């Protein structure tokens, strides 16, 4: 049975989305992404380095025809900045998707949800496909959907913290009440964190540091590929209920 992820009319084979930051070099980036099986990759929007004229461009390693490039507005702390970066990203002519980040605080990198909603509203009106990086507040998630975001990306834990899902109860409420694809983004530490997110019913997981920061990023990328697949299959298979007491697996009948 085909279990493809569909967002804003686009189909994706992989439910693992991967960031391209923090790798040693572009070669390692490409190897890790290939090992992960991801077909959506996030990129940051920055000034071209005029003085360092090495010819290498990230997109020479990640062909936009083969991967879906998802530009982010990382580093933006205001609505104005986020809008500027999103519009510049689209003007580069590669994508009209945007992972919208409006950051509220330098230490936690938590989203400024008020600014996020304001920026999302404007960008949706301008025809962007807005995928907002939000917190685990189901009310904010619902507001983002109401204003036209085709998916929502709640954080598991602070970016790069490796803490895994800090608030599974809120995430479950979001999964139950918010009727668009949910992509858990940020805070994943290791494979089991990703599997758990998928078991809860998340539609995809986005991670960067968990792979790029691992001792062996290529191996971790592969682990994450299986983790996402296992979690998704387990979710679709329907787990057994949790019980306080035992129910034997072997029959009593025929005992001596």
């Amino acid at each position, binding site marked *: 049975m085909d279990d493809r992820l569909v967002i804003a009319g686009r189909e994706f084979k992989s439910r693992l989305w991967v960031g391209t*930051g923090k790798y040693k070099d572009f070669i390692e980036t490409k190897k890790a992404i290939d090992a992960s099986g991801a077909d959506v990759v*996030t*990129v940051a*929007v920055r000034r071209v380095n005029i003085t360092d004229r090495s010819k290498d461009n990230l997109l020479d390693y990640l062909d936009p025809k083969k991967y879906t490039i998802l530009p982010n507005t990382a580093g933006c702390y205001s609505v104005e900045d986020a809008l500027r970066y999103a519009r510049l990203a689209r003007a580069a002519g590669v994508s009209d998707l945007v992972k919208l980040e409006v950051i509220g605080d330098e230490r936690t990198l938590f989203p400024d949800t008020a600014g996020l909603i304001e920026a999302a509203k404007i960008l949706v009106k301008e025809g962007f496909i807005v995928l907002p990086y939000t917190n685990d507040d189901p009310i904010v998630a619902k507001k983002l959907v109401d204003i036209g975001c085709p998916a929502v990306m709640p954080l598991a834990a602070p*970016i790069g913290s490796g803490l895994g899902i800090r608030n599974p109860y809120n995430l479950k409420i979001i999964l139950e009440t918010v009727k668009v694809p949910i992509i858990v983004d940020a805070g994943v530490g290791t494979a089991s964190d990703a599997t758990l997110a998928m078991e809860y019913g998340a539609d995809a997981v986005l991670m960067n540091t968990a792979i790029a920061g691992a001792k062996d990023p290529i191996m971790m990328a592969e682990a994450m590929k299986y983790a996402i697949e296992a979690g998704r299959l387990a979710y679709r298979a329907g787990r057994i209920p949790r019980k306080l007491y035992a129910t034997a697996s072997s029959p009593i009948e025929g005992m001596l």
Partner: protein
Amino acid sequence: MPLTGNEETVRCGHLIGEELANAGPGSSIHIQVNGERQTAPSGSTVAGLLAQLDIRSDRVAVELNLQILDRQNFDRQGLQEGDMVEIISFIGGG
């Protein structure tokens, strides 16, 4: 002088060299590119600036004096003294 590269490359190099040789005071403009001072030949276009900086025009966005340019106009958009240009592309990020 030995020929390097193909003939077309050599011809282009010769043309730019000629232009620079003819440049005197007043035939170059001072602009800001990505926050740094740059000079460009007077009458440059955005496309010309990108070529001057050896930047491929596909996959970059250009903002001129806080206005994002339509990439189809790179070769038509002229640059003037004091212009502020931002040339933006994608790098690794989460």
